């Protein structure tokens, strides 16, 4: 049985909320459609990356899965149960880290555990364990402003993992990082995923990132967002432990990248056209 099922999920917003990344197509009655009939199945323990042009509703998709908004029609099933609201069975990692600036790295990880009712002493021990998992041992007492961007995102990932959700939802988590940090965090994320066996839904607009990370890459259409195609990605080399540069420079990688680039290309062009039209209205 699939872990997560999107069943013809549609999301429309009233017009006045139509700003920024949620821009969509103007529909009847001053509302507009961000997502239009999304169908996608994600298996337990699978790493799925969703790519799409800007404003295609990627983040809306994640908000729906996280239970932060409700679909206008259709439904999302998690372990066969419809998603009706937020819950600790899903952990979200935000692009802007969303760390509590008044708490230390350790305190931020404990924050997630406080919601689950883990006893205080155990919280600290667990938080340390997960700080170690993301390679930040020794930075327990640093506040977020004393950490680099990459470190902050590591803390945020540790926080989401610490309360042990089944599903990890990641909303362009590495978009604000420089290239080197991003690549090292991608490796780290794959390692963590292999170690913990979480189901990961990862949103990005980077094709390379998608190919590198995902077992499957779901390409979205420009707005209103739909799943255009879900491309399974598998490297023969990966089983032998190849990673990093070796994988990125392999001909297989280039082939996948080109395939997804082709799928995405028309959509990006269309999205830009839409944006131009909207700007002139």
């Amino acid at each position, binding site marked *: 049985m699939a872990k997560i099922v999107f069943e013809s999920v549609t999301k429309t917003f009233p017009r006045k909320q139509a700003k920024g990344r949620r821009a969509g197509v103007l529909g009847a009655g001053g509302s507009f459609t961000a997502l239009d009939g999304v169908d996608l199945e994600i298996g337990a323990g699978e790493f799925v990356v969703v790519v799409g042009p800007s404003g295609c509703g990627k983040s809306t998709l994640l908000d729906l899965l996280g239970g932060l908004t409700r679909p206008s029609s259709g439904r999302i099933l998690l372990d066969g149960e419809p998603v009706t609201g937020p819950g*600790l069975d*899903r952990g979200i990692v935000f692009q802007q880290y969303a760390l*509590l600036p008044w708490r230390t790295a350790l305190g931020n990880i404990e924050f*997630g555990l406080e919601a689950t009712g883990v006893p205080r002493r155990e919280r600290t021990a667990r938080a340390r364990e997960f700080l170690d998992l993301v390679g930040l041992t020794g930075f327990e007492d640093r*506040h977020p*402003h004393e950490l680099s961007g990459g470190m902050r995102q590591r803390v945020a990932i540790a926080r989401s993992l610490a309360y042990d959700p089944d599903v990890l939802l990641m909303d362009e988590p590495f978009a604000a990082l420089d290239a*080197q940090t991003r690549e090292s965090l991608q490796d780290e994320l794959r390692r963590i995923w292999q170690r913990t066996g979480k189901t990961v839904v990862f949103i990005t607009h980077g094709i390379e990132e998608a190919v590198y990370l995902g077992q499957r890459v779901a390409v979205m259409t420009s707005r209103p967002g739909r799943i255009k195609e879900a491309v399974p990605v598998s490297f023969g080399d990966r089983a032998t432990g190849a990673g990093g540069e070796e994988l990125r420079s392999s001909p297989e990688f280039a082939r996948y990248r080109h395939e997804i680039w082709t799928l995405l290309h028309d959509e990006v062009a269309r999205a830009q056209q839409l944006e131009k039209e909207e700007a002139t209205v």
Partner: protein
Amino acid sequence: MSTAADTKTTGAGAAPGDGVRATRTPAPVREPAQAPDSAPVRETAPAREPGPAAAPAARNALRAAAHWLRAAALRSAAVLALLALWETAPRLGLVDSTFLPPVSEVAAAWWELAGNGQLAEHTQASLVRSFGGFGIAVVVAVPLGLLIGWYRPVAVLLGPLLEVFRNTAALALLPVFVLLLGIGETSKVSIVVYACVWPILLNTISAVGNADPTLVRLARSMDLSTPRLFQKVILPASVPAVFTGIRLAGAVSILVLVAAEMIGAKAGLGYLINASQFNFAIPEMYAGIVTISAIGVAFNQLLVIVERRLSLWRVPA
């Protein structure tokens, strides 16, 4: 180093001092965090500390002390210059020493007032009113501000009205307070409460409204209940801004009180100043004025220290 920075901020508006603090305090801690990854940081940081022997450490301490002394001298220079001018100008006949007696005479008058207990009496009367009004304002305005800020429609509704009240000078309303509450303690404390409420209230409302929406989303995604969200996210995020309001109110509480005491009071520093002027006891008048500025500076300094303690985590701009 931090004490040297403390003396910088005086008076109500701490804007220039804030800038100095922002650039100074985080400097030593930010350096290691600039490194893109964890490994190099962990290697360099411990290596640097035990490395140098005791002698350079002592030299460093000496240099720090010298630095501090120089900073202290620099900071007190202007005040000392003012005192020197105050002493010499009347003596040289540049100003009429009847109206501006040299600072040494004022000091003598101050010493006498302090000795015969008058100063203590007036100061106590003023502080009780000032702190009383200030305390009431904090207790009332902070919860009220949190409440109004949380219910955004209410904040939008009341915003313009609050702006009107804040921009109505409290002293302009003093006659109204006297009219309604009489000439006694009630009207004096009330005017302090009134003047203190607005900066606290407005700062608290905007603090709650400006809480990082990403953090709110995070809390929502964790299915935190609204009271927990308030307790764990909104409240701590608001503390620095709320305290800025409290600090502004602290300055206001003394400013307004002194003026209020000049009308129909029998004790208090404002009364002392006013009465001394009437009786032509000019050095005593200046002694009262100096006492008030000293109290104002000390109170503000105290609040600045508490504020900084509470906002250590604030991301330097």
